[in-house]
Each structure stands twice: as structure tokens, then as C-alpha cells.
């Protein structure tokens, strides 16, 4: 990344066009933007908060907690210091409670699209939702990257994505009077089956087996509609799509008896969960090591002064991808970030156990 005065053509640098700048509806000014609201991002709120630094967090998931909340909310973690056993959601809830005195603001369901340095050395951060931030420092705590919907292994599906194939429902009206094929057996698949059925021309729910993970109440409602002939329930897999110029007309499916069928479908909603992709981080002009962000081990700063990186997304010699390593990195990063955010302020090292001033910030004194 380069300052705008140094030119627009630096390789890999994301720059905003004037048009993009003008459509940004609101600009949020803050001390620090944290990219990623996983455990390490959440603990960074605490460590920065003790140094009077306010944070906004941006995460593509619809909830804080990152992998802990998305991949293993109910599963035990055994290597968090002081907790012989804690679940992913339990750890997330505790970290949220710990960060609460510092009133972080969450921007969920959004992905950072680009970063640029301003002339006053602050940063402008823009999301894929056209939200803009101006921050004195940036902390990239993006873990394994951003969670993206899994794409089913159907040849040529990319042509239909965004036109006929969607991985989420933004506007229900876009599905009215369509032949809709919904694939999956979890809550997303069942909820949208029930919600779209009244306005669709037809709904087919396809799943690989006659067992559903979704809430039993939704499953019962779905089965009642199927019995009444108001939706079609099929067990099998999609093997092909037919259509023209991205507009689907039929899905080719193979049922569990190995019979092939052509099913009229003009909209398809596959729900196969999420997978982690690095996303646009590789385009931000930071020095990388095998797709991880290189940092020093004193400040956990990237090759761009003022941009820090902590947790699974960073790399340094000896790096261990453990949550506890991310916590340590957050503490050291906060000391360094404080010198960027408040350059004239002397950082006094204090303990929460004994410092009345820290206890006041925590709301306990």
C-alpha cells in the first residue's frame, strides 16, 4: 500500500474511484478498525480498551466468535489457559463479556473490500456493503480468511451464480413465481423452503438422505407440505444445470436409486455450509508468507506501519496457530498500536488487579 500522493499504480493496491467514494453513505471515524471478530479480535478489543482505544469490528459472519462460533460452538477446547474445558460458544460469550466495558461496535455480515492510506496517515476502510471507516490503525485478525458459502461440485455452476443460483436470500421477491430448487438439510434449507413456498411457482427440496439436521418443528411443517403436494421432496444430488446465458431452466438430478431426472428449476439455493477463503487480503499490498501476513514479534505490525495483524492470519518464525498465541499477540500489538493512535500519550504499564485506573475503565472500581 502507498499513500495516494505516491501514485495509483502500485501493484496490488486497492484504490477507490471517485464514484466509489461518493456513494459511501456514511463514514465512521474511529481509533481502530479490527477486521475479524473471532476470539483474537475480541480479545484485542479488551487490550486496546485498557489503553483507551475504541474499536469497530467487521466480520463476514452474522455473529461474533469466528470459527469458535461457526465451526465448533458446542465442541470443547482444552488449551485455553485457565479453562480446562470450554466450548467455542462459551469462550466467545466470555470474551464478549470481557470486551463489553469498552463498547465495541460490530459490523456483521460485511467483508472489507479495500484499505487505503490517507494523506494524514490515517486509513480509509471500505466494506462490500459500501460502508466506510476512517481509522488511525487497522488490526487484521481474520483467522483463516473469510467464510464463504460452499459451492456444489456441479459443472458450469459459475455461469448461473448471481442470476439463477444464489447462496442466500436477500430479497424474497426475486423468487416470486419461480420454480425453486433448494438443496440441503439444515435450518437454512428448511427455513427458506417454508418461507418461499407460499410465493413460489413450485418448490423442490433436495437432500442427500431422509434425515434433516434442521429444527424438528420446521421438518414437520415441511413434511406436511410435501404430503399435501405443495412441495416436492427429493433425495439425491444435483449433477448438472441447463439453461441459457446464466438463466436456468432445468436441474439434472440423480436420485438415491441412481435414476436421472430433469427437474424444471429457474432458481437454485444450495446450502452446503461455509468454507474459509483468504478473500481480498492478498490484494492489500502487504508482505505475505504463503498467504499469511508477515509481522514482527515485537509489535505484530505488518509491512505497512499502522496495520497490525494477529491470530491465525499472521506469520512469524515459530508461529503456532493457537488461540492463546493470538491473545499474547493482541496484548503486545495494543502497546504498539497505542503509540500510533495516541502518539503523545505515555503508555504506563499496569495490572488490572492493582490499578484503580484500569479498574475504573472496566467498571469495577
Amino acid at each position: 500500500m502507498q499513500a495516494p500522493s505516491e501514485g495509483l499504480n502500485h501493484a496490488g493496491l486497492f484504490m477507490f474511484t471517485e464514484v466509489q467514494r461518493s456513494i459511501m453513505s456514511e463514514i465512521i471515524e474511529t481509533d481502530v478498525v479490527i477486521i475479524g471478530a473471532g476470539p483474537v479480535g475480541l480479545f484485542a478489543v479488551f487490550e486496546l480498551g485498557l489503553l483507551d482505544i475504541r474499536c469497530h469490528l467487521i466480520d463476514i459472519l452474522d455473529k461474533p466468535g469466528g470459527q469458535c462460533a461457526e465451526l465448533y460452538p458446542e465442541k470443547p477446547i482444552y488449551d485455553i489457559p485457565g479453562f480446562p474445558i470450554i466450548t467455542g460458544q462459551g469462550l466467545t460469550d466470555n470474551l464478549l463479556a470481557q470486551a463489553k466495558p469498552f463498547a465495541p461496535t460490530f459490523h456483521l455480515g460485511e467483508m472489507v473490500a479495500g484499505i487505503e492510506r490517507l494523506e494524514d496517515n490515517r486509513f480509509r476502510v471500505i466494506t462490500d456493503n459500501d460502508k466506510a471507516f476512517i481509522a488511525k490503525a487497522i488490526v487484521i485478525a481474520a483467522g483463516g480468511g473469510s467464510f464463504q458459502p460452499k459451492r456444489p461440485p456441479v459443472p458450469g455452476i459459475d455461469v448461473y451464480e448471481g442470476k439463477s443460483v444464489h447462496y442466500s436470500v436477500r430479497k424474497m421477491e426475486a423468487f416470486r413465481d419461480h420454480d425453486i430448487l433448494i438443496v440441503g438439510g439444515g435450518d437454512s434449507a428448511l427455513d427458506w423452503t417454508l418461507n418461499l413456498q407460499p410465493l413460489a411457482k413450485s418448490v423442490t427440496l433436495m437432500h442427500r438422505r431422509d434425515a434433516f439436521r434442521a429444527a424438528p418443528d420446521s421438518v414437520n411443517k415441511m413434511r406436511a407440505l410435501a404430503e399435501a403436494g405443495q412441495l416436492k421432496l427429493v433425495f439425491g444430488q444435483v449433477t448438472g444445470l441447463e439453461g441459457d446465458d446464466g438463466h436456468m431452466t432445468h436441474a439434472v438430478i440423480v436420485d438415491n436409486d441412481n435414476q436421472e431426472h430433469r427437474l424444471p428449476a429457474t432458481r437454485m439455493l444450495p446450502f452446503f455450509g461455509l468454507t474459509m477463503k483468504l478473500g481480498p487480503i492478498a490484494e492489500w499490498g502487504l508482505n505475505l508468507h504463503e498467504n499469511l501476513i508477515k509481522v514482527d514479534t515485537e509489535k505484530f505490525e505488518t509491512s505497512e506501519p499502522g496495520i497490525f495483524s494477529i491470530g491465525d492470519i499472521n506469520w512469524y518464525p515459530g508461529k503456532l496457530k493457537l488461540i492463546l498465541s493470538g491473545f499474547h499477540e493482541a496484548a503486545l500489538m495494543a502497546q504498539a498500536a497505542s503509540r500510533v493512535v495516541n502518539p503523545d500519550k505515555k503508555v504506563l504499564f499496569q495490572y488490572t488487579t492493582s490499578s484503580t485506573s484500569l479498574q475504573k475503565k472496566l467498571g469495577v472500581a
Partner: protein
Amino acid sequence: MAKITYIAFDGTVYDIEAREGTTVMENAVRNSVPGIEAECGGACACATCHVYVDPDWVEATGEPQPMEEDMLDFAQDVQPNSRLSCQIRVTAALDGLIVRVPESQG
């Protein structure tokens, strides 16, 4: 030790001596078998270590548990011999096991 043969999507064969008690996923990752991602690290929480067990070995490896069945919903191109390799533990009885790696984990 038990010999496990991984056949990658491109046909490359990886013969690996696996210690008993480890998982089929761990041995693949340790030996950089392509196509086994294991995003969640073996918690049966992501379905990116999906493999096809050779038909001759389906009986020996057994049926997936309900939690694994649920996670297989997130795997791609699931077949009757699909398993999540993090849920197959290596035993002496699996000496000679053959698994195939799918084209993509998602």
C-alpha cells in the same frame, strides 16, 4: 503401524505408514496428501477431510456416527462409501486400507 494408501484425485498414490491411534486425516495432512484440507483440525466440524473408502474396506472402517452423518451433509458428491477421514482411527485391522480423495472439498 498400519499401511494406508491414499489415492489422490489425479491418480497419484501415497502409501503411508500410520501409527495406531492416529486418524486417517492426521496421516494425510502430515504427509501433505493433496485434497485433504481438514479446516477444523479434526473436530468433525467442517467436512473438508472427506474421502471415499475402497469398497473392500467399508466393512472394516464401519458406519459413520450420527454426528459424522450430519457433517457429511456439507461434503460434496457424497457416496455410500463416503467418510470423514478425521473420524477413522487407525487400528491394526486397517493395515492395507485404501481411501480415495475427492476432486474438491468445497
